[in-house]
């Protein structure tokens, strides 16, 4: 590459240098233009402040209670920073609700504002859909092409339809008593919330490109793990657009966040709201029992026993108040429950399924599934997940996250609450 071979370059070296500099400026300008094109929308989004008029917390909650349920479709992003241990294989398994334990997930939401909706959890090349249509619901996982169909049994179905008809005819079931006005309901909600927290409306912000009012609920308790809960409510439709839960550990980013990044208030298409099992997919039916209708005597009993306690199933006790509440359930064998999971490798009867035909396969199997059950198991099953997420403590096993602690004791009690782990361990004794 000497100049001898490039006759054009020998003519005017000074001009050439200038010209070549000018030419190299073009990619520089291109890079700046690209950076500007990609950076500007983000900057505008963060810089733009809303000019929505100020409202009080009471007005805002009343508006939310008064608002018609909106038909909408949109994209929502869910982010969890719960400080849980990393879950193995979560990247490999595609779109799976297990991903919600940590990291960021994108979801598509369609709802007609009534009782039909579809929520799809997006994976790179997969999807996990939950479709609800009144008393029926389906989940569909594209990864394993499996449908689970949830229904009510015929008797419950008839009762559901009756209730739905009553509701649409404006006849409320007697049990509900007088229907409060939105303002009254809002006041009740606020009063309830203010027992244990302060409620305020923050400066208007922008969520999914719409003006929104953040309702900030700050617990007054000093022990709870929850620092504050922020619900951002759309200024026009009063639809909650974003929920953020901040933990005491991290003041910079919310521990849990679910918010729309894009939302359209229009009825979604029918294809989005209906579901029929695709041909060839494996299908499983689950009949969900509707809670039995309480008889008037039971209702009276429940009222006599005082709100709250009467509704508790046997073996469950509640200690603490407000945000410090700890729920304790006795007589639960978590390990047994998890082992009954069909995907669990651990529940294979020893010596039956674990003996494979060929020696090579047997060796491979033993390589990946150690007989002592400690090593990595190729499939993510509930027992492994339980082992991964919890840590050993003298009382049993402890799940400790940024917002919630759960202690499973060796004598079959489960304690859970939004309190530090020490509190649970103290309670367990």
């Amino acid at each position: 590459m000497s100049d001898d071979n490039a006759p054009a370059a020998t003519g005017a070296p000074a001009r050439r240098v200038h010209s070549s500099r000018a030419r190299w400026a073009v990619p520089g300008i291109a890079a700046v233009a690209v950076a500007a094109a990609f950076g500007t929308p983000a900057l505008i989004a963060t810089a733009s402040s809303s000019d929505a008029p100020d409202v009080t917390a009471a007005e805002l909650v009343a508006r939310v209670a008064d608002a018609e349920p909106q038909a909408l479709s949109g994209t929502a992003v869910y982010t969890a920073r719960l400080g849980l241990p990393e879950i193995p294989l979560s990247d490999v398994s595609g779109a799976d609700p297990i991903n919600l334990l940590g990291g960021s997930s994108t979801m598509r939401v369609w709802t007609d504002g009534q009782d039909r909706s579809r929520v799809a959890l997006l994976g790179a090349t997969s999807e996990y859909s939950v479709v609800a249509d009144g008393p029926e619901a389906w989940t569909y996982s594209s990864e394993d092409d499996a449908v689970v169909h949830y229904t009510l049994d015929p008797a419950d179905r008839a009762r559901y339809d009756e209730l739905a008809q009553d509701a649409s005819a404006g006849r409320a079931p007697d049990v509900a008593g007088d229907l409060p006005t939105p303002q009254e309901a809002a006041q009740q909600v606020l009063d309830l919330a203010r027992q244990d927290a302060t409620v305020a409306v923050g400066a208007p912000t922008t969520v999914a490109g719409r003006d929104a009012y953040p309702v900030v609920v700050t617990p007054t308790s000093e022990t709870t793990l929850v620092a504050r809960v922020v619900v951002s409510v759309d200024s026009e439709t009063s639809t909650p657009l974003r929920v953020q839960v901040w933990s005491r550990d991290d003041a910079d980013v919310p521990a849990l966040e679910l918010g729309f990044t894009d939302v359209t208030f229009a009825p979604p298409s029918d294809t989005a709201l209906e579901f029929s099992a695709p041909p060839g997919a494996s299908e499983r039916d689950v009949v969900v029992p509707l809670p039995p209708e309480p008889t008037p005597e039971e209702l009276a009993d429940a009222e006599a026993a005082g709100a709250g306690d009467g509704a508790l199933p046997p073996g469950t006790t509640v200690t603490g108040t407000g945000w410090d509440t700890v729920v304790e359930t006795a007589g639960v064998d978590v390990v047994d429950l998890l082992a009954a999971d069909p995907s669990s490798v651990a529940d294979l009867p020893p010596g039956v399924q674990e003996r494979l035909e060929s020696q090579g396969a047997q060796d491979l199997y033993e390589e990946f599934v150690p007989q002592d059950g400690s090593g990595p198991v190729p499939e993510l099953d509930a027992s492994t997940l339980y082992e991964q997420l919890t840590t050993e403590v003298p009382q049993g096993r402890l799940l400790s996250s940024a917002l919630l602690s759960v202690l499973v004791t060796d004598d079959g009690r489960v304690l859970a609450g939004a309190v530090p782990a020490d509190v649970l361990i103290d309670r367990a004794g």
Partner: protein
Amino acid sequence: MSPADSHAPLPAPAEPARRRGAFARTVRAELRLVLGRRRNVVLLIGLALVPLLLGVVLYVTQSGAFAGQGPGFIGRVTGNGLFLVIASLFLCLPFLLPLCIGIASGDAIAGEASAGTLRYLLVVPVGRGRLLVSKAIGALVFAACAVLAVALTGLVAGAALFGVGDVTLLSGTTVSVGDGLLRVAAVVVYVGLSMTGLVAVGLFFSTLTEVPVGAMAATVVVAIVSGVLDQLPQLSAIHGGLLTHHWLDFAEFLRLEPDPGVLVQGLAVQAAWLLVFGSLAWARFTTADVSS
């Protein structure tokens, strides 16, 4: 483009009419060269064999224990031949397609330089800028052929082995064959357009060196490094701008309602890489001394 001509080693700016004809001839010659080169034809045949191989393997094993299993879309192929197109593209995207496209685009200028033919090429009464454009067209057409080779053999093999039926989308909704074909065609187009950024990167490396293998390797390395960086959660801030980050977004066409925002985002990133590396290649090629 006229300043570019002043640097061409040969003078005599021809009159515009003739030059326009010359450019068209250059492009035609370039296409003949790219598509007629034995190495490139072998690459295309190799790519075309991927869906064939995958289809035959799935056909033979479809009654076995692993039927309906596999990552991505492989598990769906036995039910519907159309998915062979998508499964094959999915398999080729991480490595085979970037490799073939890297070879073709990395060779574009550096190949001529190493063969000593670049200086003769510059004798053609076409400015260097236009010469680069014709080289870019050649590399882009090869990239399109590479994607089409996978897609068309996938379609034919899939239809022959498994038949074509209603398409089940990722959301579990079933759409008609016509709609399914349209969606698969859109996937192919999106994958093709996703390669344009890599072609520009390859072209830029090709202007830097006289060793074609170096340019080819560097191009493939860019694709692979981009894929690796995409896996690091610590770099999530820059993931959106990575060359390969949006490649798998073709799956958007298999969702219930493809979100145009996602697709535009992916194509905009490719356009950005095309713009930056295209202009880098232009700046380098129009200012470089060509001695061989």
